[in-house]
């Protein structure tokens, strides 16, 4: 079995003096992450192999925590502009989440202008959700028309956090923001719902890349923001295998918890069992024996 490759890029300069991501450092981290992940020595070439020029690319972010604990605009916009510039069509890149209000409160400036990066919520005028539920195993949901109809391929640019029910929230759970009823899928540690959702073609076939934002990690009492349990780690985690990336994120959270003397997620009966379910469904690899982790500093 071929191992899933997960790349951890660390930079002491990731966060600027104001505590926000430094765009030039972000770009360096994105480039290095892509290069190592693809084995290419030229990140832009790797991007062009990953995405076709005509494709509309969605960057799904997570803004439920507003400015305190959301995907940083300084990070997402840097990624979007880089993709747009490399692939030649800035307006084919859509940074998106559930609502415009959440996006604005997280610091994003909405944009649907022709020729520029698009930043919008599913509740934008003329968008909304598909009209009939898509059903897969335990899940039946309407999909954001951004994910279902506007984008051809997707990047999950997700914030890595502890989660009081799921155990952790990362790249897979980020897609809960693509459906109309995530509140229905938090029973039993979100298992099997997360795997069943990801298995739907609208996600599985469009998902190309996970980038976990682990610049600061909420390692306890997440997904809400609690500064006393939020640690700066200056890392981004990259992978094509959505399960493996989240498994590595889980390990990072466990390490932080152990360092602070907190019980493991298993001990708190919220181990992210959905990762094993996802592996069982053929969505990726959850076991560390099958994951190649490459770490690099930039």
């Amino acid at each position, binding site marked *: 079995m071929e191992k899933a490759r997960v790349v951890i890029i660390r930079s002491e300069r990731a966060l600027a003096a104001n505590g926000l991501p430094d765009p030039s450092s972000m770009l360096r981290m994105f480039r290095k992450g892509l290069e190592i992940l693809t084995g290419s020595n030229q990140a832009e070439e790797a991007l062009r192999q990953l995405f076709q020029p005509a494709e509309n690319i969605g960057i799904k972010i997570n803004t439920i925590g507003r400015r305190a604990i959301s995907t940083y605009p300084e990070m997402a916009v840097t990624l979007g502009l880089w993709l747009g510039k490399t692939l030649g069509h800035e307006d084919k890149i859509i940074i998106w989440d559930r609502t415009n209000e959440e996006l604005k409160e997280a610091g994003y400036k909405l944009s649907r202008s022709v020729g520029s990066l698009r930043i919008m919520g599913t509740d934008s005028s003329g968008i909304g959700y598909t009209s009939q*539920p898509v*059903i897969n195993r335990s899940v*039946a949901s309407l999909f954001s028309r951004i994910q279902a109809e506007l984008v051809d391929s997707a990047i999950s640019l997700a914030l890595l956090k502890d989660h*009081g029910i799921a155990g952790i929230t990362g790249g897979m759970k980020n897609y809960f923001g693509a459906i*109309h*009823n995530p*509140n229905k899928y*938090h029973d039993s540690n979100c298992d099997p719902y997360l795997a069943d959702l990801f298995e739907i073609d609208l996600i599985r076939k469009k998902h190309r890349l996970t980038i976990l934002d682990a610049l600061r990690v909420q390692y306890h*009492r997440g997904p*809400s923001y609690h500064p006393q349990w939020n640690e700066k780690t200056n890392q981004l985690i990259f992978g094509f295998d959505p399960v493996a990336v989240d498994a590595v994120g889980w390990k990072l959270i466990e390490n932080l918890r152990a360092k602070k003397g907190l019980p493991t997620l298993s001990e708190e009966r919220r181990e992210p069992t959905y990762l094993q379910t996802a592996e069982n469904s053929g969505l990726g690899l959850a076991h560390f024996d099958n994951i190649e982790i490459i770490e690099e500093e930039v």
Partner: protein
Amino acid sequence: MRRRDFLKGTAAGSGWLLTSNSLRTGQQRLLATEARTAAGLSRVEARYYDRLPDREIKCRLCPRFCQLGDKERGFCGVRENQNGKYYTLVYGQVASYNIDPIEKKPLFHFLPGAMAFSLATAGCNVACKFCQNWEISQMRPEQVQSRYLPPEAVAEAAARYNCPIVAYTYSEPVIFYEFMYDTSLETRKKGLRNAVITNGFINPEPLAELIKVVEAIKIDLKAFNQDFYTNYVRGQLKPVLDSIKQIASSKVWLEIVYLVIPTLNDKAEEIRQMARWLKTEIGPDYPLHFSRFQPMYLIKNLPPTPISTLERLRDIALEEGLHYVYLGNVPGHPGENTYCPNCGQVVIERYGYTIKKNSLSGNKCRHCHQIIPGVWS
């Protein structure tokens, strides 16, 4: 405005009530300011929750006991933790309203022939795969079009259109508990009555308070086994049975509906057990309705319930000693009628939602003077 115009307006999503001169402008503005956010969701503090450390909360409204961090919503999708305080987002946010005959709920022993001003918000605390109103019940409030109708406006509209009943229905009124409760108080001031059409999935404490302000409750008993509740409802049977007992021990009128879905919850033995349980626990006099299933939402692969199945199940319930067992969604069937359990004569003859003939004399059978339990006037 005539009733026909009202119904037309409802279907078209008209906001007539907001522009109605029955609502004084100042009052309208005040209520809007109090209860609504810029996004059109209400922000009224929820009842029945505990504050926990680290801005978490635990909801005590229904047996799910959702425990939520900041910015998270419960399973219902309409109650949200905002910085350690729990809010209902649907207070006054009416996603659907209509004037329906009370027989449509169905309530057959509660003011027969009366019209009910019926309303719902978005949201539900279960997720039935056969839901007929999933387009509001399985939605979050920001995903449906709503009209702002505070309790006073609901009571006033119901009175104006000669509806003696306000019915909380369509989705699941438990999840808009605060709005339902306050509206019930307002409607009582106008001499109107309140009917709750619910899954019964509510905790005893809020139910005990609700019972004090409403006059009738219809419970959808989805099946008589937990497996069905797990696989097709995502709820629990026992709390529903507890609710049935709690309501039956109060002064509130109770009726029970059982939607019969072919092959899923139509086993004769299970129906027999259910009928025995009902007779033992609440007595033989509360009506039980067997409703005909039509394929919809996530269960489109099963046929409508054969009428013969409904008839067989009705016979079983009658055999077990229940006095009032009805068939629903089969217009014109004799099982729609109310029969006197003493003399066997028809005391109320129905066709669909229409009363064809009411032979009650007060609360008694005109033929043999047997008391027929219910709220008849």
